[in-house]
């Protein structure tokens, strides 16, 4: 049997097919039920065994060859069709992306979390207290009796009192220090807490707002000293400002609720309006601190002959301004979208010590 003519015919037809339909026609003509090769295969049964064997082998080879050719051609046609489609599917990829709103975290929240991360590592929990306070918690318990000059200097906001209610008016807390009393009263000693939050002073001008954020620190134990206070604050500043060389100056001062008391200055330079912490020859006051006054411990139910420790308070907004170069305190509370976007932080910028606070 000579299959060369058939072979040439169908291979030629397969190669010439211009689309899948034409190719299918070729397949049917050759290998379909009524196709020529199928017909020849069917005729094998009528042959003598010897002849059948030889012809069968030839036909099998032919059938496989044509089948491969058809498949190859089908793949090639598919590729060509895909190429043609892809050519038509051009997009201007410089067009804008679908819009997605980007939110931000306020610098005050961010800095509060930074503070918390640092002090948590040193074993400080976060305590809270009410912002409307009794004058006892805000003043008396902190060793500021009613006529103490310091009480006048607090520029206190007083809450309304109904006629007939003869209690002293409540105040908007002027500092976070009353949380010291509440925390010690509740948890006793030893204790280590920080208390971040809003405080209020009657003060509004270029550099003051009637509400600011403060963080209180309190560490009470059997042998906690002012030297420990200095170390804690040095460590805090080094971690917070993320500079290895931080220099603090402790300056004797006076707060009724600490004794001895110190104001703490940080060394900085001002180069072209940019503040740099840890260098230069200027000092900026950043916080007040001291050893908790025995009367304050006693007011909170802690035995001052057994326990001692330190407290400090610093301005969170001010820390944020210093660290992130934010110029104007008043803008913190204005909600100007441009400011929020510029000075705000991404949702996933979560400060932790492992990754660095502002990394």
């Amino acid at each position: 049997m000579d299959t060369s003519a058939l072979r040439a015919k169908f291979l030629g037809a397969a190669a010439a097919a211009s689309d899948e339909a034409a190719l299918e026609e070729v397949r049917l003509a050759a290998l379909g039920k009524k196709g020529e090769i199928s017909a020849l295969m069917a005729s094998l049964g009528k042959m003598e065994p010897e002849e059948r064997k030889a012809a069968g082998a030839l036909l099998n080879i032919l059938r496989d060859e044509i089948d491969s050719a058809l498949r190859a051609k089908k793949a090639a046609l598919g590729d060509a069709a895909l190429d043609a489609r892809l050519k038509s599917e051009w997009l201007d990829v410089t067009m804008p992306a679908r819009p997605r709103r980007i939110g931000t975290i306020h610098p005050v929240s961010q800095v509060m979390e930074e503070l918390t991360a640092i002090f948590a590592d040193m074993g400080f929990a976060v305590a809270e207290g009410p912002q409307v306070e009794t004058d006892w918690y805000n003043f008396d318990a902190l060793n500021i009796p009613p006529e103490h000059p310091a009480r006048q200097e607090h520029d206190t906001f007083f809450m309304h009192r109904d006629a007939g209610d003869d209690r002293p008016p409540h105040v908007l807390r002027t500092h976070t220090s009353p949380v010291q009393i509440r925390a010690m009263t509740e948890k006793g000693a030893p204790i280590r807490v920080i208390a971040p939050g809003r405080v209020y002073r009657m003060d509004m001008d270029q550099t003051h707002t009637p509400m600011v954020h403060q963080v209180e620190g309190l560490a009470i134990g059997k042998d906690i000293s002012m030297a420990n206070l200095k170390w804690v604050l040095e460590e805090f500043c080094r971690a917070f400002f993320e500079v290895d060389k931080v220099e603090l100056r402790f300056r004797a001062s006076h707060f009724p609720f600490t004794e001895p008391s110190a104001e703490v200055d940080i060394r900085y330079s001002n180069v072209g309006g940019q503040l740099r912490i840890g260098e230069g020859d200027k000092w900026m006051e950043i916080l007040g601190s001291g050893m908790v006054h025995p009367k304050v411990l006693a007011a909170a139910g802690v035995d001052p002959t057994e326990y001692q420790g330190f407290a400090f308070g610093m301005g969170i907004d001010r820390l944020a301004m210093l660290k992130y170069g934010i110029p104007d305190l008043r803008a913190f509370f204005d909600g100007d979208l441009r400011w929020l976007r510029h000075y705000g932080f991404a949702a996933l910028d979560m400060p932790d010590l492992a990754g660095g606070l502002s990394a």
Partner: protein
Amino acid sequence: MKFSLSWLKDHLDTTADLDAILYALTDLGLEVEEVVNPAAKLAPFTIARITHAEQHPDADKLRVCRVETDEGEKQIVCGAPNARAGITVVLCKPGDYVPGIDVTLGIGKIRGVESHGMMASERELELSDEHNGIIELSSGEVGQKFTDWLAVNRPAVVDPMIHIKITPNRPDALGVRGIARDLAARGLGTLKPMPIPQIKGGFASPVQVQIDPALRAKGCPHFAGRTIRGVKNAASPDWLAQRLKAIGLRPISVLVDITNYFTFGLNRPLHVFDVAKVQGALRIAPAKGGEEFLALDGKTYTLRAGMMAISDDAGVESLAGIMGGEVSGCSDATTDVFLESAYWDPITIATTGRALKINSDARYRFERGVDPAFTLDGLDLAAQMILDLCGGEASDIAQDGAPIDTARAYRLDPARVISLVGMDIPAETQRKTLQDLGFTLNGDMATPPSWRPDVLGEADLVEEVARIASLTKLQGKPLPRAAAGVPKPILTPLQIRERTARRTLAALGYNECVTYSFIDEAAAAMFGGGADATRVDNPISSEMTHLRPDLLPGLLRAAARNQARGFADLALFEVGPVFTGGEPGDQHIQASGLLIGSIAPRDPYGSRRIADTFDAKADVEAVLAALGAPARVQISRKLAQWWHPGRAGVIGLGPNQIATFGEVHPRILADMGVKGPAVAFTVLIANVPLPKVKTATKPALALSDLQAVERDFAFVVDAGVEALVAVNAAIGADKDLIESVRLFDQFTGERAEAQMGAGKKSIALGVRLQPQGKTLTDAEIEAVSAKVIETVTKATGGSLRS
């Protein structure tokens, strides 16, 4: 508190230079706020001598001088009439800045003759107004710095003024001597002795004094004075005038200046009455109320009942310890003066001063506390000065009452000092420090000096020792961890939720605001607040009168400001405290978000769409999910007045409301000047229940190999039927088999009503069945479907849509 270096040196014998003194002051707790050093502007000038002076060839009034200077001989043209050979002058060279004429000199040519500098007049160096000629010095070497010459010959004009901040506990430092004592204790010199003169009165004081019994115990325990007769009250001598001028006080007359000198020098405010104008005895008594009093500041004050005043037969002559009166004040005509020295109770003075709003140097000192044991000594020191400067003769002392007893003692425990401060200060040093500050030590008991009313316990001794030892020198010591090992988490569940809410909202594209806790009354009232309980009695402005009852008014105000700046699309949020009342604890944490304008800017894909209630709902659900609220909640319309009554909902768990979302009431927006519509939500963070299970382990994941089956149902219901009713009914049809139900379509409006009848709508639910254990048969699926149809139609009063 201001003082000059030379005033300090009246009390402190020291060789320390200005910088060392300034450093020590700040370190001691007497923080230096400002230093004005007049020598600084005179630093470049040197002393020179004119060797020849000739007539200028072209100008009658000019002379060409040859001047011997530290840089050799120079030619200088000078117009001063006294410029002549042989005089010693002050030289300003080319390049020097001359303060009195505000000029930096160059080499000049005057009428054709070169001039290498100038010789200065007093006015040109701002030393005085003298300008009739150049300065002629009576001494001085060529080349000597002029400031060095001034320091020796006219120290007052180069006297640095130092301004320090005094903390309220240090009244003693409101006198120069107290500051000197601190510096001496630090080791910067020694405190000079101050002998008290022995004055023998020559006659009984014609002005007698009497303290009302009502004030004797507290308000005015001790009042003393002397009459000095035959005085001449003129201008103060230069040294005294200079002392006062150096700290910005205007010299008035020697009698008045002496009282100021004692106020600032020794923290001993005094008062002088013109005896001729005092009628009868001086009585220190509480005011009856209504008395009018013309004070030395020229203002008339009306006294309230109980205010402490000094009166004579004519009426009130002095507001005791706060301000003297105009009527009985001293003038140039005064010949007989009554000098008052008294001790006034700090609290009484503070109360009166505050009530009358008078701030005087006397009030400032008496309310902080002057030395009660120094009343008579101060009187005699001042009387002696009057005798020395004004002449006259002193009377006996007229006095009533006696110095209060300040005696008290506290234990100095050197070991405790070391333990508290964390610095090794030897016991002997500690004792010496206290003694240098005027404490008396008896064994380990320390008695504070009478001028230190602030020392009220052992802790105060520690502070004195520590600050004199220098806290700047304190070395930090590590604070050991309270417990070894990895620190435990420290945040409370509520604190964590606050953070979670904040981060979730930022992740959803909201910008966090921090707005004031107080708002105006109208805005507070709009949001259910504004009651008197939340009113601030002394607000700083009418915009900040009430504590906020909700976060939305603050956010809406911020939105209005942003709209005014041209930003129309806003997504703002705040997480913070709101106040339900005026008692401590009447506050809780809210998280609120506000969407105004479009959810996206214009773009080619049609993303722009006005934010609506379901945007707010999506975000509030995201926050609730992040806080761990259960997925199944109830939604009610028990809405507060600031929500749109039809387009807002309250999310609750039983009776517990956890959030509200929806459109803000259009009237509220109009009242707050916000261009709407606006949608918002508020989450009451603390109301979201905490999980009952406290384990990190999650429940096992139950996966079924059996294929889930989805069936969709459409129902025709009344337009007012809420979707959640249908969804909950469907879920309840077979709680084991039905995994979830979701509303995926609704058909409402005119066309829907045309098809299904007036007041009707259609809703479509997708129900997902998850077989357990075995594949569902068609019959079982049919049975569940029938159950779904039955429960939904029963719950909604609707029917299956055919």
